[in-house]
């Protein structure tokens, strides 16, 4: 099938094979300096039965030109922030500055080994320390670890800290406190992270307004088994939990702690601080709020900030300042331990610090305002065309549904796929789970008014198409290299790797 040539459509090179299919015996893509020491017989160094004997058969043999063309062609099949608006709700797809990339590649950082003596890595430790100080100021929580490698990793860290705190505070009694409360609108990572820390999960209902149901919260807190609450704020419906202080009081009065999922901090930076709301521990996503690139699915970075009371439980090592120098502090006997080798995703820390310094304190606030304004502008622009299930004004993201279009058989997935034909990446779909046919739209501050208007216009045209020509929407996208893929078939009989032809046939 790969030998068939498809005519050029919107993609210049639709025919790029897998590298293994391109591979030709004898092609070379590298050159090393010749070995400059006497070569000893292999068997003298490594026993024969420990040696590889397959000669790496079937690994690719290609030239450098093959590699470049291969990846450049494949890259053209991707949508990206640099191409246009990428309104994935709760993902904060904002501009990834080239300056930050340049900073991360400065040789004094890029070539530094993580086990270099403290004395010879002061600049690197200073970067960590300064970023820590800024994130402390931004969250209003006085203690921090930058070790977690992603948001879910930061969640796990935060919840383990809660567990360790309760175990230390309550001793044996803590074994009765093993329930983590999580709203029904939460990310799936929340319950998964709670489970990793040995908690069972109870779900809190949302009100018809889209906020945490306080009565249900009080009821769940009355059983005496509550370890804590995991809350996203603004929540995943894009709404600020305006009762946040009362929520924290209820949980605290019941002996629990409040964990905030900081996925949506892009609505709050420079405007309000979780620490002032009564939150005990939070994770941030440097790859969302602080613009480090998503990279097609990572790397992320998920710093964990907490109160003084929780500080003894943070992962080791802590990075501290003594006098004019920076050092690693391992002397934290109550710490939950390490969550990752070395210090975390350091390259992301450099980029995030560069983001904060480039914006300045006024620019951080300006970005938040612009992000919320863009979201409100879309909310206003699409109201009436799509059902907006919650009437209160959204923060940085807004949720709509497919209710009006579903009457004609057009659903959220179809609207999302049709949006691709208009040149936009779709919004987050079918999340949060509590809203049927949810479309969660987060434009971020990185989109100008013309593009917002185009997006609104595209969504309105799709709504029109859904009425007049639903088939057009149901079969979208029409302009991509491939159409909708049969995901059910892919999961039934998964093919997760390439195999050489003969072997594939034999299998």
């Amino acid at each position, binding site marked *: 099938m790969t030998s068939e040539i498809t005519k050029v459509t919107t993609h210049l090179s639709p025919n790029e094979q897998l590298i293994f299919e391109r591979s030709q015996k004898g092609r070379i893509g590298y050159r090393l300096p010749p070995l400059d020491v006497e070569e000893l017989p292999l068997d003298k160094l490594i026993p024969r039965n420990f040696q590889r004997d397959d000669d790496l058969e079937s690994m690719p043999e290609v030239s450098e030109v093959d590699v470049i063309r291969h990846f450049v062609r494949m*890259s053209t099949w991707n949508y990206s922030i640099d191409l246009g608006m990428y309104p994935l709700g709760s993902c904060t797809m904002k501009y990834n500055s080239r300056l930050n990339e340049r900073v991360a590649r400065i040789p004094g950082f890029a070539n530094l080994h993580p086990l270099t003596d403290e004395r010879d890595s002061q600049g690197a430790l200073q970067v960590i320390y300064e970023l820590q100080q800024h994130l402390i100021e*931004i969250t209003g929580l006085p203690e921090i670890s930058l070790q977690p490698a992603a948001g879910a990793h930061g969640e796990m860290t935060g919840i383990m800290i809660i567990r360790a705190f309760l175990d230390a505070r309550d001793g044996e009694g803590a074994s009765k406190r093993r329930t983590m409360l999580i709203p029904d609108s939460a990310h799936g990572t929340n319950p998964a992270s709670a489970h990793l820390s040995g908690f069972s999960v109870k779900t809190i209902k949302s009100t018809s307004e889209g906020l945490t149901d306080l009565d249900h919260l009080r009821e769940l807190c009355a059983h005496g088994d509550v370890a804590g609450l995991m809350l996203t704020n603004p929540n995943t419906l894009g709404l600020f939990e305006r009762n946040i202080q009362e929520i924290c009081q209820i949980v605290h009065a019941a002996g629990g702690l409040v964990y905030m999922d900081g996925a949506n901090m892009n609505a709050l930076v420079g405007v309000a601080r979780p620490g002032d709301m009564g939150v005990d521990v939070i994770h941030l996503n440097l790859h969302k709020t602080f613009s480090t690139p998503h990279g097609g*699915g*990572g790397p992320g970075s998920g710093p964990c900030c907490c109160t003084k009371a929780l500080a003894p439980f943070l992962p080791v090592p802590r990075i501290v300042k003594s006098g004019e120098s920076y050092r690693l502090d391992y002397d934290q006997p109550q710490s939950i331990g390490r969550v990752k*080798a070395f210090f975390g995703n350091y390259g992301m820390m450099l980029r995030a610090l560069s983001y*904060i310094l480039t914006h300045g304190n*006024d620019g951080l606030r300006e970005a938040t305002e612009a992000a919320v304004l863009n979201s409100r502008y879309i909310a206003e622009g699409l109201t009436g065309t799509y059902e907006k299930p919650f009437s209160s004004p959204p923060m940085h993201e807004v949720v709509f549904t497919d209710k009006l279009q579903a009457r004609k058989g057009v659903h959220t997935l179809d609207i999302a796929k049709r949006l691709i034909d208009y040149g936009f990446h779709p919004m987050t779909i079918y999340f949060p789970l509590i809203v049927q046919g949810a479309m969660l739209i987060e434009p971020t501050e990185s989109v100008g008014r013309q593009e917002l208007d185009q997006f609104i216009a595209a969504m309105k045209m799709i709504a029109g198409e859904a009425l007049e020509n639903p088939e057009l929407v149901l079969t979208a996208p029409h302009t991509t290299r491939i159409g909708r893929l049969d995901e059910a078939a892919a999961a039934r009989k*998964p093919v*997760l790797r*390439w195999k050489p032809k003969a072997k594939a046939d034999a299998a």
Partner: protein
Amino acid sequence: MRYIPNSPEERAEMLAAIGLGSAEELFDSIPETLRLRGLLNTPAALSEIELLSRFEEMAARNAGARRTTFLGAGAYSHYIPTIVDHVISRSEFFTAYTPYQPEISQGTLQTIFEFQTLVCQLTGMEVANASMYDGSTGLAEAVLMSERVTRRSKIVASTSVHPEYLEVVKTYVQHAGIDLELIEFDNETGQAGATLAAAIDDETAAVVVQSPNFFGCVEDLTTLADAAHARGALLVVAITEAISLGLLKPPGACGADIVVAEGQSFGVPLSFGGPYVGLFATREKYARQIPGRLVGEAYDKQGRRGFVLTLATREQHIRREKATSNICTNEGLIALAATVYLETMGRRGIQEVAQQCLQKTAYASQRIAQLPGFSLPFSGPRFNEFVVRGPIAASDLLSRLAGEKEIEGGIALSRFFPDLKSDFLVCVTETNTRAQIDALIEALTSLFANKTARTQP
């Protein structure tokens, strides 16, 4: 702010268009008492020129980054072909999200499919995932997975596994009802002790070893796999120096059930410890127990081949607390770097890098062993790292090498094993020239060898 397209005037017009009088009103749903009065106490904005010079100043305080280096222990200096950074710097890759919309993410998806294939080929395993955060968290996930697969709760691990990896495993299992038993390494061979196999019983979910291990010694995986399987346990193999796979028998061929590796050696800069990329591979029969994302082949209505995220019912966004892991964002871009590296170096390049590492390490280790006052305490076969026992405390020795000779000579083992005061771990790769190795020998000789002869007649 130059990253915000809308000018203040445009924003004022937009505010008016949605019926608001000021930006402050955007935040009306936040109780007034919670809103900040003034600006954050973070620095004022820097221009590009100012910012770069600030970071350059800080970078200049990292003397370690400029020296000849023999540091390894989980992070390695290897040659990175120029095209790796070029490819990962393409907007289409680095500014894309997790490929949730396959029709406009085929570049990322096909790359991950190739990555999964390469990981299988290198490790000799049948399936691999789209990546973990790094080797250490990959190992922790492997331990949790072995509990799911076997429904047993005891893990036996050798202390010859990277100490930081073991610390991470400890953190991950502390609330999982898993009993982690550490078995001392053999201080003659530097390999896992004979007692490791003896510690496996009918409660054991998995045996955990690293090969080449923390001391650079290659472990006898086949024997360990047989011992594990005889009691119904799994063999979990961790690898920190993935280049070794170019030369050493792949764990899959030795009988390993789960293989995790740190992929930093495949085209990823040291960058003070991250971001790196964890490789995770296992047997086909355990595919539905794998943590993290998987990409599989799929076809559209016209029969055109593409790739999608698949077997998602294992994952947190569907299974929530019953998911195989909480991992969501992984290390996509770094997995891309590793893929570009592996395809560029290719079948022959990976073998040649491994060969050069081995040969140069043999050259360095044999010369150091001949120096008066110096010895190699472990007899196990080594790949590109080895432990040296010196005449004085290793931390003092290394700090003089750095300060007086501008050489990062190794890592003092006392950092992890307080009893091994005079031992340090040396790593040699294809980037170390013979001249650099000779300079290290010369420095050790001039600074320490003669003195030892005097103090220890």
